[in-house]
């Protein structure tokens, strides 16, 4: 991926993802992990190379509404209530009107916000807002979920709770999730595989499988295996840099 100004954002990225996987893209700022996700989502176009999502190009996948996208910010619409925000994709996609409300309510219940349907976004905390945006991404039942540092702006405690909730959602819905993060514990805790990326130019350094048993819970974070995998990720990140950093 080369931007018009000549910046090489992403150079080597060969990766195959199976259905039902939970993949984390991890790396320091500028390693192209968000770029890779935006390429997959057809929000930008590659300058070379090819991407196939279930046999479709990203554009075809986007047009067939194959994926939901959760952004760094909740991007909720302040003039809509929580329920109406979750209904937004259904309205845009022309889902029969009678289904809007029950489906949105089901999604809110799934993220544990059933009681907040009538609230406006500003009445919710940052973590709750991000849960609404996850419910919104799931509302039209896409098979794929792209998540771009969705919990990056949240405090550690909220983040760990939401990690656990996301894993539950993933188990219950069987979605394929591609998750961008720069937190090593978050990546290890959530993923079935971790894609370690390094910058200048952005490339995939290595892919680390995570064999921690499912279902994972708070104790998972304290197991020896958890730390071993975290160390592997940390070493891979360091290697890509070519010098010692403490990121």
């Amino acid at each position, binding site marked *: 991926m080369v931007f018009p100004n000549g910046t090489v954002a992403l150079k080597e990225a060969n990766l195959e993802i199976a259905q039902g996987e939970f993949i984390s893209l991890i790396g320091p700022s500028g390693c192209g992990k968000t770029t890779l996700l935006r390429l997959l989502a057809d929000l930008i176009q590659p300058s070379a190379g090819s991407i196939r999502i279930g046999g479709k190009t990203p554009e075809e996948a986007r047009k067939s509404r194959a994926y*939901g996208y959760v*952004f*760094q*910010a909740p991007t909720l*619409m302040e*003039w809509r209530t929580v329920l109406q925000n979750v209904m937004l994709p259904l309205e*845009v*996609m022309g889902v029969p009107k009678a289904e809007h409300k029950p489906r949105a309510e089901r999604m809110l219940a799934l993220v544990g916000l059933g009681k907040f349907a009538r609230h406006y976004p*500003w*009445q919710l905390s940052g973590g709750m807002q991000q849960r609404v945006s996850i419910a919104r991404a799931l509302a039209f039942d896409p098979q794929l979920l792209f998540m771009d540092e969705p919990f990056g702006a949240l405090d550690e405690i909220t983040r760990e709770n939401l990690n656990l909730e996301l894993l539950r959602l993933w188990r219950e819905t069987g979605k394929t999730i591609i998750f961008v993060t720069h937190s090593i514990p978050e990546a290890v805790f959530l993923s079935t595989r971790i894609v370690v990326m390094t910058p200048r130019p952005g490339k995939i350094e290595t892919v680390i499988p995570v064999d921690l048993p499912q279902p994972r819970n708070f104790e998972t974070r304290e197991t020896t295996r958890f730390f071993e995998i975290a160390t592997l990720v940390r070493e891979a990140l360091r290697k890509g840099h070519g010098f010692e950093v403490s990121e």
Partner: protein
Amino acid sequence: MLRLSPNLVPMLVVALVVLVLYWPLMYLANIPAAQRALDTGAVLPCKTALECATQLRSPVLPSPQQLWQGFGNLMFPLNSQSAIPLNAAVTALETLVGLLLAAMLGFFFAIGMVASRAFERSLLPWIVASQTVPIIAIAPMLVVVLGQYGVQGWLPKAIIAAYIAFFPITIGVAKGLKSPDPLSLDLMKTYNASSWQTYLKLRFPASVPYLFTAFKVAMTAALIGAIVAEISTISFQGIGKMLAENSRASDVVAMWVIMLSSAALGILLVALVNWVEHLATPWRRVPQREGGGR
């Protein structure tokens, strides 16, 4: 129980201070004029300059009693052609119709500017230029032109009001339509939303707060436009017509009364916008919760 808005008390304090300061200022301005009138032997119902200062026929500054009497004379009867209520209603009508016309024109230009770069680049300089022409120079000419097509009475004034009111609306709405952040636009793209859907679900609602801010600016501009149009053309009704008439008659007290009334009209019209805004934006109305939220 009547709940006073927290802004009301400081506002009233300022009004009181102004009134208290006005009194000595009024005497200071009027005593020399009163002395001159006494010296020339004019027939006055008073003997000293101090006494006469509040009773001059054309005072430099009218006394509060004179203003009060002036209001009494000019307010009634309510449906009189020479009283303020009917004329203020005509000016208000011109202003509101002008604002409506301005809103339509403003939306058209704003959507064009957001949808097409070429449109913006070719038209924006002319839109800006249109506002540099003094309204007082355009008004009589516009009235003559419109008169050729049988458009007479209050409508030409509304059109002149629209001429200066469409500018803040154009700029405000264009800014509002451009206000959604890139992520929200990306979000609509991931839904494969059509450009019309993006307007309907994202750009229009996002522009609403900007729209009302623009309306408040445009409302006062339209009122100025309507009054200037009434003054600078042949008018049979309106605040501007009353101002012009009393200016020719050198009725200082009446002019003050009309000026204060038009100020009240302006406040009333802006309050109307505030009220509509309150109704149109329920999401900003929910009482703020203490703590939490973002």
